[in-house]
C-alpha cells in the first residue's frame, strides 16, 4: 500500500517539477512548484516524518510561494518568448544530468548506505514534542542567535530602504 502511494506522489512531484521548467508563464510555473512541494510533503508523511511534512506545507508551499508570487506580480514579468537554447546550456545540462545519475548510482550501490530501516535509531526531530525539547535545551544558543540574525536582517532592510532624512 505504502509503495503504491510512494510511486503516485513521486510521479506527481516529478511532473510538477517538469511543469516548472517547461511552462513559459511564470505564474503557472509557481503553481507547478506548489504541486511539487505538496507531493514531497506527502512523501515525508510516508516516511513518518510528520513534523517535516507540516513544515514543508507551511513554510514552502505557504510562505515561500506567496513570496514568489508577490515578486512575480511586482516585477510584472511578461511571458518569455521561446528562446533558442545555446550550445553551452545544452552541454551544461547534459553534464549536470550525467553527474546526477552517477551520484544516484554511487549512493545506491554503496554498501554502507544500505541499512535496514528497523536498525535505524529514531531521529530526535521526528515528533514535535522531541523537537521542542531539543530546540530549547541542546540548541538553545543557536536558536537565540537566530533571533539576532532575524533582528539584524529586519533592521538592515529598514536602514537600506527607508526614505532618506532631509535635514532642514
Amino acid at each position: 500500500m505504502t509503495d503504491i502511494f510512494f510511486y503516485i506522489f513521486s510521479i506527481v512531484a516529478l511532473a510538477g517539477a517538469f511543469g516548472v521548467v517547461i511552462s513559459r508563464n511564470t505564474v503557472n510555473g509557481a503553481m507547478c512548484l506548489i504541486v511539487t512541494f505538496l507531493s514531497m510533503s506527502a512523501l515525508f508523511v510516508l516516511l513518518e516524518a510528520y513534523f517535516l511534512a507540516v513544515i514543508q506545507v507551511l513554510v514552502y508551499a505557504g510562505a515561500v510561494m506567496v513570496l514568489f508570487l508577490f515578486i512575480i506580480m511586482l516585477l510584472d514579468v511578461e511571458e518569455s518568448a521561446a528562446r533558442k537554447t545555446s550550445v553551452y546550456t545544452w552541454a551544461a545540462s547534459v553534464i549536470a544530468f550525467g553527474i546526477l545519475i552517477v551520484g544516484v548510482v554511487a549512493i545506491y550501490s554503496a554498501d554502507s548506505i544500505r541499512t535496514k530501516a528497523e536498525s535505524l535509531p529514531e531521529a530526535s526531530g521526528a515528533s514535535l514534542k522531541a523537537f521542542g525539547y531539543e530546540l530549547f535545551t541542546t540548541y538553545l544558543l543557536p536558536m537565540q542567535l537566530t533571533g539576532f540574525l532575524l533582528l539584524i536582517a529586519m533592521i538592515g532592510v529598514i536602514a537600506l530602504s527607508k526614505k532618506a532624512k532631509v535635514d532642514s
Partner: protein
Amino acid sequence: MPTEIYQKIAETNTWGAIAPELALAILALSLLVLEIVLPKVAHGVIPRVAILGQLGILAYVFTTTCAGTCVTGEAFGGMLSFDNTGQLFRMFFLVTSVFVSYLGMVSLENKTLPQVEYFHILLVITAALMLLAQASHFVMLFVALETATVGFYILVSYFRNQVVSLEAGLKYLIMGALSSTILLFGIVLLYGAGSNPALAGSSLDPLNFGNLGVFLSANSSDSLALIGMLLVISGVAFKIGAFPFQIWIPDVYQGAPTPTTALLAVASKGAGFAMLMRLADLFSPLGEWMYPLLSTLAVLTILFGNLAALTQRNLKRLLGLSGVSHAGFLLIGVVAARSVEWASTAVMFYLFAYLLASAAVFAVMVHLGKDDDSDLTLDDLGDLAHKNGFLGMALAVGIGSLAGIPPLAGFIGKLLIFVAAFEAELYGLLAVAVIGVVVSIYYYFGILKSAFFEVWRFQDDDEETPEEPVPGASLRFFGKVAIVLAVAGTIVLGFYQNPLSSLLGG
C-alpha cells in the same frame, strides 16, 4: 519522554561563559534604545558609546585571559568549546570592531544615512564571529556564520545612494549565498556519513566536532565524508578568498563603504582562519587528502593575488587583492601546523600584525577626504606626505608592514610562517611564498611612491581645476589616538614580540 537527559543538557547552558558576547549583544540593543531616548542633537554620542563599551568588553576579555581565569572546556551541550585560541580570536574580533567603529564614525559623519544601525549591526556581527571562533558543533558554526554574513550583506550595501555600493551588496549576496550552500551541503554529507549505524564510530549527533572526529578516525577513507570535507573546505575558502573562490573580492571591496571593506578584509578573513584552524584539526584523519588540497590552494592564492594586484590602480581593489595573497601566506601556516605545533601561533601572530597594519592603512583612506570612496586611486594619494605628514607616516608604516619590511610586525609575521614552513619541510610552498613576497614589494611600493614623491600631472589652464579635498581635514583627537595606536602596535611588535607571544603561548 526522558526529560532527565534534557535537564542535564540544560545545565550545561552556562551563560556566564559567553559574557563578552552577551555584553556585546546588550550593547548593540542599547544603542537602538539610545537613538530613541536621546534628543537628535545628542545622537553623535552613540558611536562613542559603542566604542567605549567595546573597549570595556575588550578589557574584560583581556583580564580573564591574563589572570588564567578564562573558562575552558565545553558548554551548551557541546555547542561551544573554550580554549586559549578562542579567547585570542575574541580579542582579535573586538579590536577589529573598535577600529571599524571608529572608521564608521568618520565616514558616516555628515551623511544623510541612518547612523546607529551601522554600529548595531557591526556589534551583532562581532558577537557572532566571536561565537563562530569557539563553535565546536556544525549547527552553531553555521548559525553564527550566517548571522555574520547577513550583517555583512547589509553593511556592504550601506551607502545605498551610491550605485557601486548596491552593486557590491548584490554581488556579495549572491556569492555569499552560494558559498553558504556549498558549506551546508558539505555539513549535510558529513552528517549523513557520520550517523550511519552500519559504520564504526557513528553517533547520533555527528555534527559535534568531538563525535565527528571519532567517526573520521575510524573511517578515514569514507567517500561521503571526503566529499563533505571537500565542500566544507570550499565554503570556508570562499570566506577567506582563497584562489578559485576569490572572484567576488575586488568588486565587493571596491563598492563597499571603506569601514565595511576594512571589516571584510580583517574580520571576515580572521573568521575564515578561525574556522579553518578548528576544521583542519577535526579533519586531520583525512589529512592525506586535505593537506595537498590546502597546499594547492595556498600556491594558487599567493600567485593569483600578487599577480592580479600588479596592474591595479584602484586603492581598494589593490588592498583586496593583496588580502588574497595574505590569505595564501596564512594557508601555508595552516598546512605547516600539521607537523609543527607552534605554526598555529604563527598564524595568530600574522593575523594580529595584519589587523594593525590594515587598521592604519584604512584609517588613512577614510581621512583622505574624498566624497566617493569607491574610486580612490593611487593618484588620490598624490603628495600625501607633504600635505599631511602624520597620515603619510601612518600609511608608510601600514603598507610597510603589509609588505613585510623589517623591522615592522608584518615582517616578523611572515618570518614566523616561513620558519614554520621550513621546519615542516614544505620547501615548494616556501619557494612560492618568497616569490610572492618579492612580487608584492612592487605594488606596495607603488602606493608609497605615489604618496611620497611628486607626480607630474597634466594641467589644463583653460579648465577650472576642481577643488582638491584636503587629506586629514576630518582628523580629530580620537582619530589620532587610533592611528597612533595602530602604528605603535605595528612597530612595537616588530621589535618586541614578548607581550603577544606570551598571550599566544599561555
